[in-house]
């Protein structure tokens, strides 16, 4: 008889007639790392929200048995008290407070009515040791990188005597090094007896770390795989996730000739006066018509800054050097100039600065190119619906209607809306910043397919990505950045993960 710390039996959760979860069974053994996998919209997040009490007892059907008892959580605090902690993709830290204040935020150590700061600092240091984070507890959170912030978040949950730790895409925002550290830490915690549920899109991680993996599809449990029986492999997971076989993660594309150079920057330097340093240093790149350029590099290597400095310089860097679009020297005063010149930039942070989350799909799609649906400043709202539905169909955006609020869409569909918004501007050069971050394999494949169609139509694409596989799989040519400099240019033939990492860590 297995020792289950958690059993979720027959969980069904409906939203106004749509079954988000349909009779889901999910069992987690004590002391294992259990990965929860599924496409966007498969119901992973909903299941975890049911578990943590975001959706209170009574709003769903089925039983949650935790530590042998049926639990009736009415709010998140109830599940926290029971020993369940969730760490979301968007970290819940206070950037302007110190590490130790954050670790004990909401759980302060008291001496009488007052906070005992000395004890807090001592205990915080112990927690930091547990997560192997070597920083001064008095550092401010905003001065730490994302990877270290994640560790602080884990330290925070450990301070609350957590029994079951749930991580929602913990490595989505991390580079390879930080990701590896985190996975090591999870193994360490497992040896200390902490059970862990990890939601992840990165199959490699799942394979390297999972004891078991449960796959959800369309709100139903497909299967649970056991690593110790050798059941977990990339192909098995993908097959079960999408319900079909994907031959290759990267769609094939025919070899083709590239055209003339469409974008060129020379000796390009961007100085950030707020940070007081150069974020891009003497960069030289060129992009040809019909080419997909990969830009690789670690977090903070200046990739996004390079893109922004090209795209009308919204951060007001001090720029030096020359830029040519289709052979003509240009200098953009505003993002609108860049758009006019045929450049589009799909941001890495679609929720933060990519989309208008409270607005519907159609007004998001047209937001960057209202000229296309207006005459003399007056909008044609019917035309807008036409445009919206055209992109909804061609990009396969899954939504109940064009009036659906974008904030309620899944990550992959949001990304497609963001892409649609920029395609509607009719760009010649499309800059994609982390185009597949936090979206599932199926949606990734669709985005890659769209990219291939776009270059066939003569567009050029600059793709910034932290996923080496993606860079290698999709790019015709690769630039690698480190500390603001272009440290190397690799052709498709000479690219290996090792070659990129070597240049990225120069």
């Amino acid at each position, binding site marked *: 008889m297995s020792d289950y710390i958690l059993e979720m039996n027959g969980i069904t959760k409906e939203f106004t007639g749509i079954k988000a979860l349909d009779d889901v069974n999910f069992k987690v053994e004590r002391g294992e790392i259990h990965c929860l996998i599924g496409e966007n919209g498969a119901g992973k997040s909903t299941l975890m929200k049911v578990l943590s009490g975001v959706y209170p007892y009574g709003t769903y059907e089925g039983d949650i048995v935790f530590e042998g008892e049926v639990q009736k959580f009415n709010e998140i605090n109830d599940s926290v008290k029971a020993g369940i902690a969730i760490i979301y993709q968007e970290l819940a830290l206070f950037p302007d407070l110190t590490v130790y204040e954050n670790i004990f935020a909401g759980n302060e150590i008291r001496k009488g009515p007052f906070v005992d700061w000395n004890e807090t600092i001592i205990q915080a240091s112990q927690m930091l040791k547990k997560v192997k984070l070597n920083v001064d507890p008095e550092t401010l959170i905003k001065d730490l990188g994302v990877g270290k912030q994640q560790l602080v978040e884990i330290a925070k949950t450990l301070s609350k005597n957590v029994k079951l730790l749930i991580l929602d895409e913990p490595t989505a925002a991390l580079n390879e090094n930080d990701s590896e550290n985190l996975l090591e830490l999870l193994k360490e915690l497992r040896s200390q007896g902490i059970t862990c549920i990890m939601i992840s899109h990165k199959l490699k991680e799942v394979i390297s770390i999972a004891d078991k993996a449960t796959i959800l599809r369309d709100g139903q449990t497909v299967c649970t795989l056991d690593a110790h029986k050798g059941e977990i492999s990339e192909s098995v997971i993908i097959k079960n996730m999408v319900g079909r076989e994907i031959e290759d993660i990267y769609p094939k594309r025919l070899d083709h000739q590239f055209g003339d150079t469409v974008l060129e920057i020379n000796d390009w330097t961007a100085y950030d006066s707020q940070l007081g340093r150069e974020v891009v240093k003497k960069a030289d790149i060129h992009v040809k018509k019909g080419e997909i350029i990969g830009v690789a590099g670690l977090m903070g290597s200046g990739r996004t800054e390079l893109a922004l400095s090209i795209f009308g310089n919204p951060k007001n860097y001090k720029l030096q050097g020359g830029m040519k679009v289709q052979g003509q020297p240009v200098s953009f005063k505003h993002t*609108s100039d860049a758009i006019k010149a045929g450049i589009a930039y799909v941001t890495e942070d679609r929720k*933060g*600065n990519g989309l*208008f989350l*409270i607005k519907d799909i159609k007004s998001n799609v047209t*937001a960057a190119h*209202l000229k296309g649906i207006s005459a003399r400043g007056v*909008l044609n*709202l019917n035309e807008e619906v*036409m445009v919206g539905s055209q992109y909804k169909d061609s990009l396969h955006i899954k939504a109940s209607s064009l009036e659906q609020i974008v904030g309620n869409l899944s990550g992959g569909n949001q990304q497609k809306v963001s892409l649609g918004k920029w395609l509607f501007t009719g760009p010649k050069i499309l800059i994609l910043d982390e185009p597949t971050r936090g979206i599932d394999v199926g949606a990734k494949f669709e985005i890659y397919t769209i990219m291939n169609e776009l270059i066939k139509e003569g567009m050029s694409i600059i793709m910034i990505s932290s996923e080496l596989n993606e860079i290698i799989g999709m790019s015709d040519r690769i630039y690698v950045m480190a500390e603001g400099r272009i440290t190397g240019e690799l052709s498709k033939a000479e690219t290996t993960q090792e070659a990129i990492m070597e240049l990225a860590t120069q």
Partner: protein
Amino acid sequence: MSFFNEAKFLIKSNIRDYGMYIALFVIMLTFAILTDGLFMSSRNISNLLDSAGYIAVLAVGMTLIIVIRHIDLSVGFVAGFLGAVAAIFLTQIGLSVWLVIPIVLVFGIFIGLFNGFLVAKIGIPSFVATLAGMLIFRGALLNVTESTGTIIVNDDLFNSLGNGFIPSLMEVNGLHLLSLLVGLIGIILYIYSEISNRRNKAKYGFDVISPKIFIFKLVFVSFIIGYITWVLAGYNGFSWTVVIMLLVVVVYHFLSTKTVLGRNIYAVGSNPEAAHLSGINVTKITLIVFGSMGMLAALSGILFTARLQSATTTAGTLFELDAIAAAYVGGVSSAGGVGKVTGAIIGAIVMASLSSGMNLLGVGISYQYMIRGGVLAAAVIFDVMTRRQRA
């Protein structure tokens, strides 16, 4: 779908939009019953709308300011000051009304642009920048009225903006003919625009509401316009204040819903960073919205001075808060990106109805403030609840 089911569905899915109208209807009905119909008398409705006018135009501008996540506290005393400037131009310098009004409106635009400059270019929080403006223009108002005290305006043409009515052409059974014609034209335009809108949608192959509901809606709205016209025609007809108010609503409603500029304003409000990255000039939009607010503050000052037929040392006191309250009652959200111009007008009328109705009932001023505060809180609670329901 049966008639009632569809109606129920439409109301349910648009409760946020219809909520205000229902609230206004309930408030009016309650007062009408409590005052034995006195509240709905031609004279009272006419007075009520006139007294809402100078706040309503402010509320329209304030709605857009709040939509782009700012606030303007200076508008009250800007209105007071510019009202006094108008009075001085008319009485002491002797300019004609036709010159004074555009000059004062332009002054208003410049004041608004200056606020916008402080906020958008220098980066001062709008609360602080306009708080400073509030103090400065309070001082300026006192300064220009200090030597003379209250400035009496004798210009009939100017005063008619606040008190006068559109000419009647001729009386028909004691009803105001031109007003009836205006109402009729209003109804015809409304029906025409709805029908052409529906045709257009059908042409593009979009869903339209069923014919029954459509006709019901046409009849209902036409009836409301007709009824208000009839009520007003029974007194002196449409006042100039109401005409100006309607013009402001029509223009701003069109601007905010049907133009690129309007769309950009809402985009800046819902996510300024995304707006910037979408090629929208956030600085320019901020300047335009503050400039328009300044112009409407000038208009409000003109209406108020004309209504009192004089500029006083305390004109404009607390206008800004009344305008903010009206905007929130009208459904604007402080999180930005949400709020309608038509809502602002309804909000202003709701607040004015409360004052008027309670005055008729002889409710003490102390209770009036409490009740108005309660209604403001209730409106925002309703807004928050319906939004949560939808999410």
